[in-house]
């Protein structure tokens, strides 16, 4: 029989918290984290559907039917959003790796995030034009 263990309240949770300012709000790093979570969720769930539509390749008629949907303007807009999410998630992932491997680079974190956002916008605009071009030129629908 040992001494009863008295559990200390966690400094991280509960109303007795003694940890001041542990939550930061509105800074660039937090918004990058929020965007990374959302884009990761979107990419993951679309990947699940993508596995389903590609797995239909052994049934050519079904495969063609389902892939006809991707020509629809609504799905083309969805793909532009997906492209943006994918590019942001990839580039921001590289930014996180950079901070992990080179902690000294944290001083440039905000500028790198700006570069990530700028590059995401540029690549999404270029890719988005390519995706939407057939619709804009009236070759579809």
């Amino acid at each position: 029989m040992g001494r009863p263990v008295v559990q200390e309240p966690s400094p991280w949770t509960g109303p007795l918290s003694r940890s001041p300012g542990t939550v930061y709000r509105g800074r660039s790093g937090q918004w990058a984290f929020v965007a990374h979570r959302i884009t990761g969720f979107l990419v993951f769930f679309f990947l699940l559907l993508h596995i389903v539509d590609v797995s239909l390749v052994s049934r050519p008629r079904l495969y063609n039917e389902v892939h006809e949907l991707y020509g629809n303007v609504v799905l083309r807009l969805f793909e532009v959003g997906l492209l943006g999410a994918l590019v942001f998630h990839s580039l921001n992932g590289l930014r996180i790796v950079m901070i992990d491997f080179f902690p000294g680079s944290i001083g440039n974190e905000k500028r790198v995030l700006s570069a990530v956002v700028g590059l995401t916008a540029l690549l999404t605009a270029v890719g988005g034009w390519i995706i939407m071009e057939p619709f804009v030129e009236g070759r579809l629908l």
Partner: protein
Amino acid sequence: MEMTLAQTLFAVALGGVTLLVTGFALYVLSSTLWAGRWFRSRHRGPGR
């Protein structure tokens, strides 16, 4: 254009994913407003 069963099912699945992602995005965005309520902050009152 009439949609086939496969197209309808896939469109429903895509709509479901869209709703799921939208809900998750709202949850994550809103968490920036309420997730700090268990922490003391230098800028806010205790226990809020």
